């Protein structure tokens, strides 16, 4: 094979290789969104329980992704989970915003939901969202449900036996 053909093939190879890298970065990795995210600001939230929230989980407001969870650690003084979130600059939230941990679907990923309040002052970089609602733990829900069920079952059986005893007395 002559030199020119080899040059053409190698040039073609390198070009599609670079194109593939760009495809991975832009189309798959969404590099453009990432850049927007970088010039944002960070807020702190303290939750009693974060459930399965993980770093890089989305932060949503009204269902729209407005930022990402940056870092999660345990506050050694209060034994609360201190979650650091990164928000895009174009989204500003009032100071009485409520942060809640939601689950998308029954078994889906967990995310932080922000509900804007009515305060006129906006949250600034490194400030804390004071109102936070912990993740719903499915185990707690189930145990609560079972407990209620058992309780109502017990009262029902007690009233049943109360009703049943006279009839039992009638029976031979």
């Amino acid at each position: 094979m002559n030199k020119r053909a080899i040059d053409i093939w190698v040039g073609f190879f390198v070009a599609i290789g670079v194109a593939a890298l760009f495809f991975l970065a832009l189309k798959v990795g969404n590099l453009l969104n990432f850049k927007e995210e970088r010039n944002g600001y960070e807020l702190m939230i303290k939750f009693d329980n974060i459930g399965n929230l993980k770093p890089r989980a989305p932060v949503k407001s009204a269902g729209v992704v407005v930022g990402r969870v940056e870092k999660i650690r345990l506050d050694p003084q209060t034994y609360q989970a201190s979650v650091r979130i990164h928000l895009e600059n174009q989204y500003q939230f009032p100071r009485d915003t409520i942060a809640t941990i939601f689950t998308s679907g029954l078994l889906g990923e967990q995310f932080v939901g922000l509900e804007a309040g009515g305060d006129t002052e906006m949250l600034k970089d490194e400030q804390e969202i004071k109102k936070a609602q912990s993740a719903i733990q499915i185990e707690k829900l189930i145990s609560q449900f079972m407990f209620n069920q058992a309780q109502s079952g017990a009262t029902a059986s007690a009233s049943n036996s109360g009703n049943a005893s006279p009839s039992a007395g009638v029976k031979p």
Partner: protein
Amino acid sequence: MSAILGWFAGIGERTRGAIARLGFASRFFVAVVKASGSTFTRPRLLIRELYHAGVLSLVIVLMSGLFVGMVLALQGYETLVRFGATEAMGVLVALSLVRELGPVVAGLLFASRAGSAITAEIGLMKTTEQLAAMEVMAVNPIARVVAPRFWAGVISLPFLAALFSTLGIYGGYLVAVKLIGIDGGAFWGQMQAAVDWRYDVMNGVIKSVVFAFAVSLIAVLEGYDATPTAEGVSAATTRTVVTSALAILAIDFVLTVFMFRGSVNG
């Protein structure tokens, strides 16, 4: 008593051999890097090797990528459909390919397709005393023969791995969206939401660069160090493929532990 001593002596000998081999490999690596100047000032040789290592590996890597992506989507569907989470198909395919399968499988294919060829070529050059002849003519065989092949491998593999991932994602898209009928918007949208370019894509690229150095060094080293007989060259070629495969998998484990441990612990 002497049997036990002999057993220990065996272990010691093997350890010494392994360390000596590692030392030889690192000295050889330094020698190759030192002799690489002419590879980049006169890129004619490098381009010829890029053609042999990169362009000729294209077909196998692209076809494998396409099929791996398609199989990934088919198998992923089986699991995801049970949880009603078929929209996460894009995430599954993209993350598996970009983080692991792209660099690893492309590296294994590259080791068997191009690495073995490099070893056989250099080994045969040594057997037919071409390398010795070059030295007689005051041509450094490491600069003339080894360095271009080494750098061609280092440059080719990251591109091949990226192409593998790209074709794999396209194959996954074909099966998931065109064949199974998952919503195309959800496929790309969830993928873009979940794949971080720095965390996932760049770490995958870093992996493929590390594999490229490892496989290329093993290939040229085994060829240069081959016993100059027909059997020696054949044994060296086999060693290249086996050592490269083991090196890729072992390095991949170590790199994965360091790169992606954070996401597991939360």
